[in-house]
């Protein structure tokens, strides 16, 4: 009897923890999984096609990298109750504030265009015209934000996060050789030596793992959700879970293209889906669905990151918990960003390749600044109190941030001068 009672109370305690997690889960999971956006899927597909399973170890390294950076936004948001843009204005003055805000707006808008490029390319595979995809996405995203509750928005977003896992069954459909994956991918190695092209692929993988909008999005999301200091451990757990899931999905994409397309040069994920379809139509179709979902998740988060940031600075009501009448400017900026980015894709002959390259360059003007501000703000003992960065956190965070800055800068420069890394 005593044993049954103990089991019952253990079950109650675990169930209570799980229920609490499901209430608090969200920002970390959504931002991390949305990190596998249309551009990210292309990078992972190209990595698998180029190097097979050999760079899986590098993706595993990116789990703590992504976690340590994003965890700082959880603490900063929960303690200051401010988004990243407002924290920069407050901490470093209006010059750096305006620089960050306007740069964020530009990067987000350009990235949003690339998400639409990915979504329309994916749906074109199924015969859906571009205009219909853009219209459907705008309507869906409008429905998501206009219901007037953060909770509903987040749960719908989590549903799309679940769809991102479609790459896992897709990879199993092509029967990847487990022994070869373990032999090639687990231990650090550089097939063909550490040359310029290899460096470019490593930079691209880092560049897609940490994007500027992620910092702004997660911190604003933590604030909008109303997380407090006591929720930080759950926020950390949420971010760890998200970091692991996002890298697992990335690994399955590499496994999928590494199994079917090894040795083929891939330009974009839609092309990879079509090529995979020639071998296994279901796996290829799932890859295309995943690409659409990735673009949609990216669009969902990116458009909100800008609107939140503008609302914080201009003092507009800027919560998903407000109705359109209560926060008109928040929703106007959201729809303006969304619709204009969607329309660009529909312009015949629009320089979409140039836009995709330009995103990489503009992103590296914002990312180092946002990361440096993040670590400086986390060292502000007056505001952060006991949640201030410890010495070890500063060393780990500092090394990660310095590495990201160097590699993402090289990635941005390689977009300007491709000959440097070939």
């Amino acid at each position: 009897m005593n044993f049954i009672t103990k089991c019952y109370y253990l079950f109650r305690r675990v169930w209570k923890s799980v229920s609490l997690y499901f209430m608090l889960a969200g920002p970390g999971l959504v931002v991390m999984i949305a990190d596998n956006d249309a551009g990210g899927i292309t990078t992972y597909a190209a990595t698998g096609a180029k190097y097979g399973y050999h760079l899986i170890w590098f993706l595993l390294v990116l789990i703590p990298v992504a976690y340590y950076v994003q965890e700082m936004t959880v603490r900063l948001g929960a303690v200051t109750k401010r988004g990243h843009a407002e924290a920069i204005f407050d901490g470093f003055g209006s010059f750096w504030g305006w620089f960050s805000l306007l740069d964020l707006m530009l990067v987000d808008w350009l990235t949003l265009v690339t998400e639409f490029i990915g979504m329309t390319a994916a749906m074109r595979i199924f015969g859906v015209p571009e205009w219909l995809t853009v219209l459907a996405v705008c309507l869906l995203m409008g429905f998501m934000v206009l219901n007037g509750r953060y909770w509903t928005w987040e749960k719908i977003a989590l549903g799309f996060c679940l769809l991102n896992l479609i790459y896992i069954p897709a990879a199993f459909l092509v029967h990847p050789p487990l022994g070869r994956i373990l032999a090639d991918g687990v231990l650090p190695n550089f097939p063909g030596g550490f040359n310029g092209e290899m460096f470019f692929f490593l930079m691209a993988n880092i560049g897609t793992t940490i994007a500027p909008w992620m910092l702004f999005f997660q911190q604003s999301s933590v604030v909008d959700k109303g997380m407090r200091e006591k929720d930080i451990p759950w926020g950390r757990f949420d971010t760890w879970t998200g970091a692991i899931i996002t890298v697992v999905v990335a690994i399955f994409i590499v496994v999928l293209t590494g199994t079917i397309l090894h040795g083929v040069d891939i330009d974009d994920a839609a092309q990879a889906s079509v090529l995979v379809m020639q071998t296994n139509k279901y796996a290829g179709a799932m890859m295309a669905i995943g690409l659409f979902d990735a673009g949609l998740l990216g669009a969902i988060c990116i458009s909100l990151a800008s609107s939140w940031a503008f609302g914080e600075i201009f003092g507009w009501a800027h919560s998903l918990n407000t109705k359109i009448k209560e926060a008109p400017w928040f929703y106007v900026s959201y729809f303006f960003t969304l619709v204009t980015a969607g329309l660009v894709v529909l312009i015949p002959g629009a320089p979409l390749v140039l836009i995709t390259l330009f995103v990489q360059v503009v992103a590296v003007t914002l990312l180092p600044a946002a990361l440096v501000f993040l670590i400086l703000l986390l060292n502000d003992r007056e505001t952060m109190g006991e949640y201030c960065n410890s010495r070890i956190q500063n060393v780990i965070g500092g090394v990660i941030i310095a590495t990201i800055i160097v590699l993402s800068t090289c990635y941005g420069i390689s977009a300007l001068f491709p000959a440097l890394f070939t």
Partner: protein
Amino acid sequence: MPIAHALRSLFAGNLEKIRDINRKYATPRITMSLPVRLALLALRVYLLVLVGLLAYKFIVTLSR
């Protein structure tokens, strides 16, 4: 005319708002210690170099 008037007042209102924001955040709250000042200086240099590279690329592309 009412549309022109509305637009004019909208822009005027927003300009005033931007001035308010600049006044509100005129002084950085973070203590400008040596490491902070060095980090901000490094950021300025980094951004100048990057913008310089962008301008160079733009000029080279145009001159072709």
